[in-house]
Structure formats: C-alpha cells, structure tokens
C-alpha cells in the first residue's frame, strides 16, 4: 500500500469523524478533530511498517467516529451540571441504586419490612421499629435508633465514632445528630425533684457508657461531650 493510499484511509476516517461530530458546536468540534488527528499521527510514527493492516488496527484502537461523537455529545448535554462533582454524582447514582436495591431486598427477606431493635441489657423487652422507607435521618429516627440496639446481623454500637455514611439508613445522619439524640434520651430520664432541681435517673459506668434506668446502654459519654460539652450530662457528669 502506498503512502498516498494510507493517507487516504486516515483522511476517510477523519471525514467520518467530522460528519459524526456535526452536531457539536465550534470551536469544540475543530479542537476534537485536531487532537484526534494529532493522536493518529503520533501513533502512526510508532508503527514499524505502516502497512494497511497496521493502519486499520490503529484506527480500530482510536475507536469508531460515532462512539467518539456520542461521548462528546453526551458531555454537551451535561454542561448544566456542576463540573467538579459531575463524575462522582454519576457513580453515586448508579451505586446508590444498587445499595437501595440490595438493602431493601436484605431487609425484606429478613424481617418483613421492618428492623426490630431490642435492648440487650434489659429484661423487660421494649421494641423500637425503624421504618426502612423513611425519607432520611431526622432527630426522631436517630432517637429511635439510640434507644435500641439492633439484633444481629445488623448489630451495631454507638460507642466510638459514627460517620455520616454509617448513620444514613440507620436513623442518624452524623455525630452531631447522634449526640443530640443521646441527650434527648438522657433528658427524658431526668427526674424533677420537689426542690425544682433535676436528679439524674441515668448513669455513666466505669467504661464511660451512659445507662438509662432499664439498664440499656445508649452510647458513650464521650460521644455526647465531644459535641455538646455544655449539655447537662457533661456539666453534671
């Protein structure tokens, strides 16, 4: 194959690319054609013999003009998105759909739409039901979660750090919401005295765990006091 005919194969390819990109506005279209043309020229320099087959293989690696155009046009349609987060959002949407699908399946299979939480330290069993279809973490759902430990396999503890991703779907959104929910439980276990003062009906054990009267551990003292150092628990504790 002569150099002229090899040039012809490449020119044909670039013409097909121009046509495929016809819906792309200038100057983006010319830039793209220019860059791919440079890429082909660079790749061609690497070919030992520049046979027709080598050139065709090279163009196969570059890809079908229609596929390149589809990629470029998809970008044009996305210009309304926030640029720096666009990629991650695409990944998040896909995988969030997987998580929701899997999580819903697992919970439906296990517990007929609901997760039942049973306090492990209480002989008297109280049950907290957390809907799996809630619209997002709120102080109410977080408080519900604090007042009950989940049974295995969804066993978890509030001791230590909870990150925002761990809280989602389990009632609490972040450390702050968790601390506020724990304080809500503590406050509910404060008994007013006749003198108008409050006496704690909760306690903190030697492991730094907050225990309410039914014997249930609701979390670590330190977890609350890191976030709410001026709360009654932390001032009195």
């Amino acid at each position: 194959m002569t150099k002229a005919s090899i040039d012809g194969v490449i020119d044909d390819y670039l013409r097909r690319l121009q046509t495929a990109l016809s819906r792309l506005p200038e100057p983006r279209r010319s830039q793209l054609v220019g860059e791919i043309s440079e890429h082909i020229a660079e790749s061609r320099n690497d070919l030992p013999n520049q046979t027709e087959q080598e050139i065709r293989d090279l163009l196969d690696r570059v890809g079908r003009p229609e596929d390149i155009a589809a990629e470029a046009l998809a970008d044009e349609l996305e210009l309304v998105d926030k640029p720096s987060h666009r990629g991650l959002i695409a990944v998040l949407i896909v995988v969030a759909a997987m998580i929701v699908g899997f999580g819903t399946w697992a919970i439906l299979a296990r517990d007929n739409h609901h997760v039942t939480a049973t306090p492990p330290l209480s002989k008297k069993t109280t049950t907290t039901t957390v809907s799996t279809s809630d619209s997002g973490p709120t102080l109410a759902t977080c408080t519900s979660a604090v007042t009950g430990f989940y049974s295995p396999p969804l066993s978890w503890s509030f001791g230590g750090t909870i990150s925002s991703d761990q809280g989602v779907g389990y009632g609490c959104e972040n450390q702050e919401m968790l601390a506020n929910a724990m304080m809500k439980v503590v406050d509910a276990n404060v008994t007013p005295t006749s003198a108008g003062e409050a006496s704690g009906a909760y306690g903190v054990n030697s492991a730094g765990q907050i225990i309410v009267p039914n014997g249930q551990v609701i979390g670590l003292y330190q977890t609350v006091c890191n976030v709410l150092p001026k709360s009654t628990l932390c001032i009195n504790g």
Partner: protein
Amino acid sequence: MVAGGTPKLMAQMRRGAIEYCVLALLRNDERYGFELTRELANFDGLVTSEGTIYPLLSRLRQDELVETFWQESLQGPPRRYYRITEKGRLALESFVVQWSTFRDTVDKLILGGGPT
C-alpha cells in the same frame, strides 16, 4: 439487578471516575494526549477506545480543570501538552476523599458487614 446490566453499569461507573483518573495522571507530570491514552490503556477496563479520551480532555479544559500548551518535540511536530490547574487539583483532592468514604461504605455492605 440483572446480569445483562453489567456492561452498562461498567460504562456508567467508568464515566463517573475516569476524569479523576486523568487528573491523577496529571497530578505530578504534564503529558500530551497520546501519552495519556497509552498510560490509561495500561489500566484494565478504564478506556474502551483511545479516541474517547479526547472529548473528556476537552471537557476538562472547558471546566478549567486542565490547561494546554504547545511544546516542541524532537520526533515530529509540536505536541499539545495537558497540565492540571489549581482548580483541577482541588477537584481531585475532593474526589479522593469522597471516593474513599464511598468505596468503604459500599465494600462494607456488599462484603456482608454491618455498620460499626
């Protein structure tokens, strides 16, 4: 999820992550397009065809995450080099943090663990 959805899923995941892979390749070095595509081709599953990198580079430039400049070459015509911008570095740093958290969360779920 059906098995037939896998290629589409891979395409969507690749599309979401690849611009940050390009920014990561440019984090320490300026590179020209041909060089970038060869580097990316060394990583399985990241690139379907060499040409589809160029619309991506064009987008990165439009978003001011990379900038280009020309440099003489000893082996032919001048080359168009890509360089990460400060905005690009910030976007990459932000992605690295978010990706790490996100990956750990998904791993925890799909590997059968519960929240800790």
